């Protein structure tokens, strides 16, 4: 048991580096998503940058990194936006973990196969928005919601997801290339 706890919770240099690089990237995306008016031209909707990055982290790094990043990103997004239905920690976890599970098993680890995950993230995010809107605004007309919010959001997530995924992949590669102390000693 003691061995297991040490395995999971010892703050190694590699773990701290991952937290700093990926945490910083997720924080930057959170600020961009919630502050910059990137959806002004398309129905004032917001692309799911954070969930896209979580999926890319799970896919290009590992399911463990994806799951933890998903929980943290989902919780921060919920806390930041103050939504009543706090589904995002669970959704973020599922996206991060299962993106990592399919990578290398069902799909090869490449940017094109990751497109499948991006599509899935866009649809899942759309469903989350629909649930949130239905709970917060029961009098909403479903057609208006689909046409003016859900579809623009889907398109924006797909468009913005590509650069977000590429940058995330680049960060994963950079993080892996940084030599650890142990490597240096060797």
């Amino acid at each position: 048991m003691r061995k297991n706890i040490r395995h999971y919770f010892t703050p190694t240099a590699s773990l701290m580096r991952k937290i700093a690089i990926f945490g910083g990237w997720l924080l930057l995306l959170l600020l961009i998503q919630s502050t910059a008016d990137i959806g002004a031209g398309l129905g004032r909707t917001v692309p799911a940058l954070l969930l896209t990055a979580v999926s890319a982290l799970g896919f290009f790094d590992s399911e463990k990194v994806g799951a933890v990043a998903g929980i943290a990103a989902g919780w921060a997004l919920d806390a930041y936006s103050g939504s009543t239905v706090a589904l995002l920690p669970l959704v973020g976890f599922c996206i991060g973990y299962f993106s990592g599970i399919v990578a290398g098993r069902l799909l090869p680890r490449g940017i094109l196969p990751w497109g499948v995950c991006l599509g899935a993230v866009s649809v899942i995010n759309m469903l989350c928005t629909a649930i949130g809107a239905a709970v917060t605004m029961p009098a909403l007309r479903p057609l208006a919601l689909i046409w003016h919010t859900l579809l623009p959001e889907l398109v924006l997530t797909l468009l913005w997801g590509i650069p977000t995924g590429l940058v995330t992949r680049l960060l994963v590669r950079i993080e892996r290339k940084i030599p650890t102390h142990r490597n240096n000693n060797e």
Partner: protein
Amino acid sequence: MNRFLKNKFFLITLAVALTLSLSATILAVMGVNDPVRNLFGTITLPVRWCASKIAEGIDGYRVYFNKIDELVEQNKALRDENAELREQLAESELAARQDDYLREYLDLPWLVNDWSLTDATVIGREASSYRTTYTLNRGSLHGIKKGMPVVTAQGVVGSVAEVGLSYCRVVSIIETASSVGVYAKRSGASGLLVGDMKLRADGMCLITYIEADADIKVGDLIVTAGTGSIYPAELTVGTVVELIPDDVSRMLTATVRPAAELEGLGEVMIITDYQIKPYSYDDIDPSLGEDTDAEHSEVTE
């Protein structure tokens, strides 16, 4: 499936995710302020403020390069409007003086809005697609409470929907869930201001339940009614840009452009307290009375 259930990492992280999701949802449904969220909101306040300022700067450049022609036209239109308003101001000053004189002469009580205001800065906009909410840098520490109206010099912005220790979230009037009693300043035609999913994208909203034969036209100024609403009366909401008759319900629907510029919102005021009270004659500026008396004596002479 069994593979996942035997995986300790999967089970632990799933439990954490479920706990975070459920606890936050249950607390929100119960109307209790989540202390962890509150702490997160307070800690990230400086970061949000910096991000908001950076985004404002970037947005300023975007507007400068993309909308320069539009701004030149808008500037010309505003100059014309300014000249017209100056004329109207001179006329209304005269009308106000006559009104002062008549009220005093007939011993009519004066009703005025007595407001207490707190200034605030917008430090973020809500990160979801179906709501327009803004985060302000004022919270319960500054005496802010849920439901307080938020305004700018131009007009109503919305009302406080959630209060944290040092921040609060404001739901704008173009939000689909909001509904405000309003009337046209010129004619008194009343209706209910509601948000609309389609118009929200253009920064506009609707007035519903206007009588079909009501005296309302494009360009009319819309103000809050103040009856049974969280907003005090006579707050400027916006102007009518389009009227749509509904033959079935025999009602009119008006499209309204809010007076407050919700896009690129920066500084706002929160109305922390308001009451309508009779204006005491002791409060009347004595010089105003002397002027009207002098004018009156000139007229009688």
